[in-house]
């Protein structure tokens, strides 16, 4: 049984002050909002529990589109901006902050990129039993200056030192409901179900996977 614990961090970018992790990230002031947010959230989680994940899955909607535009609009002359124009690169400051090396994937599947990150994380745990703890993470823009980081911790069953949160789920194998729409759900459907505590007890993530609310 795979347990899923979500965490949400909202942040403002540009940040009003130097982050506490600035000494760990070279030229932190050149980060884009997404890299910054992942590092900021990673620092919070690292302070909460010293346990690192065995693998990371990055899954941010829109990939690095906004940073790509920023590079182009600024005259496409800045190498410091260009290096952020890959969706996996924005995970580097997070790696530095939590001192992680190992398996790190980056997937895209808009408009269900976050769901895809969860599904791939679950698949990795099923296929590789040695992966006991996976973090899936993504950043969503709320408005011009406000962003939201979604972090999901997946573990084999309940374990000690997990994140402190009120809501948790299990992801379990489940036969396809036969409802084609159920496996075409978008991130918005998922977030709505997860965050607003709708009465439906289960959410069909994929053909053979569903999330069930625990608390």
């Amino acid at each position, binding site marked *: 049984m795979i347990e899923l614990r979500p965490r949400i961090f909202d942040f403002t970018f540009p940040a009003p002050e130097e982050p506490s992790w600035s000494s760990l990230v*070279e030229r932190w002031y050149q980060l884009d909002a997404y890299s910054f947010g992942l590092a900021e959230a990673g620092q919070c989680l690292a302070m909460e529990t010293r346990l690192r994940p065995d693998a*990371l899955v990055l899954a941010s*909607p*829109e*990939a690095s*589109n906004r940073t*790509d*535009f920023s*590079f*182009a609009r600024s*005259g*496409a*002359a*800045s*190498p410091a901006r*260009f*290096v*952020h*124009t*890959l*969706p*996996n*690169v924005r*995970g*580097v*400051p*997070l*790696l*530095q902050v939590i*001192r*992680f*090396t*190992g*398996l*790190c*994937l*980056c*997937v*895209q*599947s*808009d*408009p269900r*990129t976050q769901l*895809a990150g969860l599904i*791939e994380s679950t*698949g*990795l745990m*099923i*296929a*590789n039993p040695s992966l006991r703890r996976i973090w899936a993470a993504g950043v969503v823009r709320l408005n011009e200056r406000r962003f939201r980081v979604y972090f999901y911790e997946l573990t084999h069953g309940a374990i000690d030192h997990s994140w402190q949160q009120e809501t948790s789920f299990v992801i379990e194998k489940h036969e396809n409901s036969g409802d084609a729409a159920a*496996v*075409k759900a978008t991130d918005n459907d998922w977030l709505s179900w997860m965050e607003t505590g709708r009465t439906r007890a289960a959410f069909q993530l*994929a*053909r*053979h996977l569903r999330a069930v609310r625990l608390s």
Partner: protein
Amino acid sequence: MSWILGYACNSSAGGTTDEFWSALKDGRTHSHAVDPARWSAAPGLMIPLSACLWPSSDSRAVQTAKECLVSQLLNVWMQTLNGLDDVTRAQVLKPGDLGVIFASTKGCIDDFIFKDDPPEIASDPLTPILDSFLSAANLDTPERICVSTACTSSLSALFLARSWLASKRARHVLILAGDRIGPFTLRGFQVLNVLTPDAIQPFAKSRSGFHLGDAAAAILVSAESFGSNLRLAGAALDTEGYALTRPSQSGDSLSRAITQLGTEAPSLIVAHGTATLVNDAIEDKAFSASFHKSKRRPLITGTKWSIGHTLGASGAMDTIAACEILRRQETFSLATTADVDRDFRCRYLVHDSEPDDLDSIESILVSSLGFGGIHAAAKIEIDHAGLP
């Protein structure tokens, strides 16, 4: 166990795997000067500039990046499908059994990026390509995803494909890989100062960087062999948080990825070989460290000197080259490299070298390095018992 049932590629060397192979064997490079009129919209693009573009690259004038990539991916998928026997083809196309993974760095970003009034992209730049491909190929599979881990994207896709097969999420996985070079990547790599005006000379003392290249590739892997004697023996990834772009000088991360696949040296390595000062040195160090206890010192070759750096497709192109070496039991050299850097410890197949200890080629390691500190390796093996 994962088997490679078929593959096809389309690059600046030509539209078929045979043409790719011929270019590598004959020592042909495919760099040409970029037409300045083609990408006049890109600010600051400094011409002259060379790149390895598709022979049909004039289609840039009439096709969007998305249309071009979908068309090239359909082409390599049809070639792959046509290479299968009827029974295998029917099995692969059985509804619900095939998963599809698309690997790319920037997808169709060039369709948006340098417009005067760029439209809002409501999606990541890869998924529309995969969706259009699946629709055009009439493949209605819920098992689909895009992977974007910089220049290791293809090997990440191979890793993920093995995971899908192991968890029985799919019985067969089609890996599609493609990047079309455009002003965004050209300009970006230009400002990073890694594009060379000279020939691409991997592992040479005088190496000075690379040219970018167009490519699309398809690799079909399966949990069943269907008579194939090519095994995808493993794929591994390791990411270090050393820096945004450059890997750490130690080569430890690549070495960790490689040794996940074993410490016995393969017959041959198809290296990433970008011909940059840092990357080549790290590969040499990682190969030495990974196999220092092995009885065999592997030979090293690569493909970028011929078709350029094909970014997200480069791992797939190298994997296809590895499959061809195993199938044909022949090698090709780094044809543009005359003098290997004297600081390097590995054995390189350069233009005039003839390996005298390579009787039988049984396994090949493919390596990739990507921005974001990601390193990847895949191992391909041949079952000689299955050879005719």
